[in-house]
């Protein structure tokens, strides 16, 4: 079914015999594959190694360059201890909880809207759906000034709600869930309705429980939207107490000195959580992102 086969088709004409030209060709392939992998891994390997290295040595091994830059030979947890003393642990925990809250509330709001679009006919449906698509095409950063002024007027600067509420309604996820629910068998909905279930009950106990792929992918997207955000928290919640993880990383850049090892320790911790989430759920994420595009 996949076009991966194309290269197999090409190379499998002459079975059994070792062809030096073919061998050279597949050797070249591996060289390209490895070179790209090195380019991708370079900053991550250095970042991990340097975060476990004392500050002076991080400069020393980078310039002049030494292989010790990639292996923490002078292993220490200094950098991690320093950032946790400054409250990095708090930032990690806060951002994680913010992410979970955004996923749960945002997920409910977006899927219920998607449910309404996919299962009902009602006056104004086309207009409202158009509005969802319209907001999808407006990049959020372009409308940041009025949104910021609004938050300021409400007295929401340095509050949790300023970080969560604007991210809850996500037009991409509304669109994605309405597409997903369209495939849901109508008979199941009808059967529940005949049994006297309310629409709210149909949505919660019939539709949502069998929408695992949708829920996983929207969970990933909403969580990452919160975990990765930097610009918005910088504007609305810069105080130490509310500092989200992406902002907390840059605290190691100070006026007279940048603490490379601490900057890298924070960065690696901020990177590890999305990596751990995306590796097992890769397929769902890809299907969600790519599936949304095909429509």
């Amino acid at each position, binding site marked *: 079914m996949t076009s991966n086969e194309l290269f197999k088709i090409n190379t499998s004409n002459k079975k059994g015999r070792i062809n030096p030209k073919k061998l050279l060709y597949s050797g070249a392939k591996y060289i390209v594959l490895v070179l*790209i992998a090195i380019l991708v891994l370079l900053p991550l390997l250095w970042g991990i190694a340097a975060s476990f290295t004392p500050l002076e040595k991080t400069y020393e091994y980078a310039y002049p360059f030494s292989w010790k830059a990639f292996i923490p030979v002078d292993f220490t947890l200094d950098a991690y201890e320093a950032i946790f003393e400054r409250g990095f642990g708090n930032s990690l925990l806060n951002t994680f909880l913010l992410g979970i809250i955004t996923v749960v509330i945002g997920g409910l709001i977006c899927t219920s809207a998607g449910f309404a679009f996919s299962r009902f006919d009602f006056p104004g449906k086309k207009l409202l759906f158009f509005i969802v698509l319209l907001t999808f095409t407006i990049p959020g950063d372009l409308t940041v000034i009025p949104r910021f002024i609004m938050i300021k007027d409400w007295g929401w600067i340095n509050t949790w709600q300023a970080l969560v509420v604007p991210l809850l309604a996500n037009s991409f996820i509304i669109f994605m869930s309405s597409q997903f629910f369209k495939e849901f068998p109508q008979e199941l909905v009808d059967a529940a309705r005949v049994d006297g279930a309310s629409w709210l009950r149909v949505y919660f106990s019939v539709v949502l429980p069998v929408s695992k792929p949708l829920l996983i992918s929207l969970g990933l997207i909403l969580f990452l939207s919160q975990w990765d955000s930097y610009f918005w928290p910088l504007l609305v919640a810069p105080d130490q107490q509310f500092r989200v993880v992406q902002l907390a990383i840059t605290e190691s850049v100070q006026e007279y000195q940048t603490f490379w090892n601490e900057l890298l320790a924070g960065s690696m911790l901020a990177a590890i959580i999305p990596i751990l989430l995306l590796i097992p759920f890769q397929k769902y994420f890809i299907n969600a992102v790519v599936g949304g595009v095909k429509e």
Partner: protein
Amino acid sequence: MKTQKFSPTPYLFLAPAIILLFIFNLFPAVATFQQSLFAESARRGADPIFVRFENFMRIFQDPVFWKSAKVTLLFSLITNPMQTVLALGLALIATQKVKGIGIFRSIYLLPVAVSINVAVVVWGLMVDTNAGLINGMLNQIGLPEQAFLTSPDQALYTIIMIISWKGIPYWALFFIAAVQGIPVSAIEAALIDGANKWQLLTRIIIPILRPIILFVLVADTIINFTLFVPIQLLTQGGPQLSSNLVMYETYRRGFIYGDLGSSSVMLTIMFIVILIVIGIQNLLLRERN
């Protein structure tokens, strides 16, 4: 299940989402347009004054704006086609049928999970002019060291390289799924007709992927158009405004100098440019059908 009489049910399901979209997305968009036509009154507390297109005129006469527009144009013309082509290349490499390709593919997709902020922080240290790892490596193999972010001739290109570390794998994600979806029959037919690999790519794979290539190009253009974090963390627009993208200039005016009027004008201009890009995309897509 079409309901005959009016029922409030769908509206109740929709209400939270639609209300939030109105407040946080639609209203701010309209307000940005509106703000661009007003000026702050000199008197404190007085209502803003309607100045029609005066703000626009002021911006159009501003050399800093034109400089940042030029930088943004150059940046877009290099970054987006380059990322699209390399992402397609990476996708084709990552779908090769060789042993262990799954591991390579997982490695290639790692940057997708790393936030742009983290990518920029780590690369920013690596390209440090005086003590960075990259200059250390160049020095080691006897190549001349580079100024990177501290040179007005190199800063923008260095930023393009850094964001592409994440950008190329991100867009490759879309191409990998698309390449895997190409029907084998199309490829077999071409091979039977004696096509070589280059012909396979240009006559079969690229035409089949055309809609998705177009999508990636446009989506990449729009996303990079509002690029902000790398500039803020690495160069603050410098040196000598050489990396001062329009989005960063709007931030500087709006939030550092407090000039929300001219910031809104620039955002409105950017919005119009994006609408034009989307319009062109739709035209190109229609042409095909």
